[in-house]
């Protein structure tokens, strides 16, 4: 059987393009002003801040309580199509990534800020991509204004009017699901200007924040049951869609691979640390659970205009949603942070660890009789 020996990368080398192709216009007329409605002229006069994005599970430096008024917060992301290893069994996938990671980086702004994203589609890529922000208003979340071919870039500005954690993902017409389950999604956190608040208005600050992006992958196998590998994303398309249609993922992982947040890469904390966990799943329902701990403050559907739930054991994040949980660690030890569909956690990969150092509290737990005969 012969396949045409067309190297798309060779052809693409001929496609040279520079400069922003899309003039981006705000959909100001469509938004209900939460704060003051701003005309484009107002935006010009706002202070501008440039953010350097950081790879998950970490997040770029940010204020929890905003100083000053709304700003234009500038981000830049380069889309990279790259082969990533999902586990040690030979499972590899051509991931489409925002900025080279699965999930894409967590972006943080405050309510009323303007997000200004420069989105670059690397010239070595094969596919057209775009970005749909669940936190944005109009134009399919920005998707209709950001379609970039390899070698192109675009700049989108939108006003962050709804406080919460939100998914963003690629949504090219006709291929949305495939791009999303190729890893092309991430999250943005729009904090209230005065920070997170509990049910009674009490502040809910955090000492550190981790971003967990859960991803379902659908890897084709050959007749012998071995993982198939491909020379380019396009070649994997048809087989992958066939597996996707079974709705049965072969992998459900945190941060792009089995074990990406365990062992040397485990999250860390100290007893007394208030740790915020942002958890996104762009495609499929999930049910996070901290084994040995709790969800002290949980916005399971991630939107800060709703009061958080308190002291949960497990919380439910519907597919296409990001959620936030804040927990203060009270005991040292190893905690497992899992999707409490335990098959997905322990057979398919959706498990992470938190290493917590500090003093043991006998009042909370004490072994009275060690297991004995």
């Amino acid at each position: 059987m012969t396949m045409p020996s067309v190297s798309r990368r060779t052809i693409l080398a001929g496609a040279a393009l520079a400069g922003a192709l899309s003039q981006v216009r705000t959909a100001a007329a469509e938004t209900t002003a939460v704060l003051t409605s701003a005309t484009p002229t107002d935006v010009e006069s706002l202070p501008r801040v440039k953010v350097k994005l950081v790879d998950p599970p970490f997040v770029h430096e940010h204020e929890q309580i905003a100083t000053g008024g709304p700003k234009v917060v500038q981000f830049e992301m380069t889309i990279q199509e790259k082969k990533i290893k999902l586990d040690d069994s030979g499972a590899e996938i051509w991931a489409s990534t925002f900025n080279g990671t699965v999930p894409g980086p967590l972006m943080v702004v405050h309510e009323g800020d303007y997000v200004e994203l420069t989105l670059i589609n690397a010239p070595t890529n094969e596919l057209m991509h775009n970005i749909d922000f669940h936190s944005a208003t109009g134009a399919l979340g920005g998707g209709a204004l950001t379609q970039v071919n390899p070698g192109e870039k675009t700049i989108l500005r939108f006003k962050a009017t709804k406080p919460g954690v939100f998914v963003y993902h690629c949504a090219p017409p006709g291929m949305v699901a495939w791009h999303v389950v190729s890893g092309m999604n991430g999250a943005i956190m729009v904090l209230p200007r005065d920070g997170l608040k509990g049910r009674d208005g009490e502040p809910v600050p955090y000492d550190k924040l981790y971003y967990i992006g859960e991803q379902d992958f659908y890897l084709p196998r050959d007749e012998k049951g071995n993982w198939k590998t491909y020379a380019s994303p396009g070649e994997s398309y048809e087989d992958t869609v066939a597996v996707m249609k079974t709705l049965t993922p072969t992998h459900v992982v945190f941060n792009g691979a089995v074990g990406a947040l365990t062992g040397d890469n485990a999250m860390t904390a100290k007893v007394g640390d208030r740790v915020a966990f942002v958890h996104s799943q762009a495609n499929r329902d999930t049910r996070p659970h901290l084994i040995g701990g709790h969800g002290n403050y949980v916005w399971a559907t991630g939107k800060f205009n709703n009061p958080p739930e308190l002291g949960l054991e497990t919380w439910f994040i519907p597919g296409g949603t990001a959620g936030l949980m804040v927990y203060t660690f009270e005991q040292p030890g190893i905690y497992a942070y899992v999707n409490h569909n335990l098959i997905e956690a322990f057979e398919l990969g959706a498990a992470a660890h938190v290493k917590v150092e500090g003093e043991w509290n006998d009042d909370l737990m004490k072994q009275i009789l060690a297991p004995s005969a």
Partner: protein
Amino acid sequence: MHTPVTLLASAAIGVLSLSFWPAKAPGNLPQLVRLDPAPFSHRLDGDWQRDGGQVNAPIRSVQIPAPVEIMEMPVSTGDWMACVRDGACIAPGGPTDRPELPVTGVSWMDANAYAAWMTKRTGDTWRLPSDVEWAHAAAELFRDDALGVEADPANPAVLWLAEYNAEATRSRNLDREVRPVGSLNVNSLGVRDIGGAVWEWTSTCLRRVDVDGTGAVLREGETCGIYIAEGLHRAAINDFVRDPKSGGCSVGVPPANLGFRLVREAI
């Protein structure tokens, strides 16, 4: 991709079908129509933009650079299965038990494998037609697919709503039946089956062209992983896509089916 089982099954069907599809026994050349360079007025292909907003592609006088012969009809399923039996093509995504129908469910890559097979078999150069060659061959049956609505710089939604309405109209009027090759229509050049339920691949890459207010080209770039497919309207589709219904259209409403015809370069 395709399991050997599928391939064998399809090949068997292909062999059976030969008995009642004698018109195109392997070895026979397809019927060809010669196209000679002559200027004609043509709505250019590609995505055209002015100030970041989509505009209609301009109409220009164009002509094919050299004479070619184009297949009178699209490649049929019977033709395709001969290539499959030779091991040079893979089974199509469309039905394999109706040799008289145009082959459907083939990607741009698949179509090029068929052209390579034809070239090897005959010693002549066979390839997909360009957008201009296809339009020349389609002659009066070529449909101008311009939307006729210009982008409103102050409101991008005006264009999206117009496009949506145009696409809804197109799908309402779409003839979804795939008919035997040669039976749909014939134009003044003797070329058959233009339009209908099968879109045809071309060798033309999707290009994005930025123009200024006077129509002068400021910048032009091609994406050669996305190609123009011709039919009732032009679609731009990733080269690996076989079934546009399940996705793959990067611009505009997806075509119903993907097939193709080839040109032979004049000897």
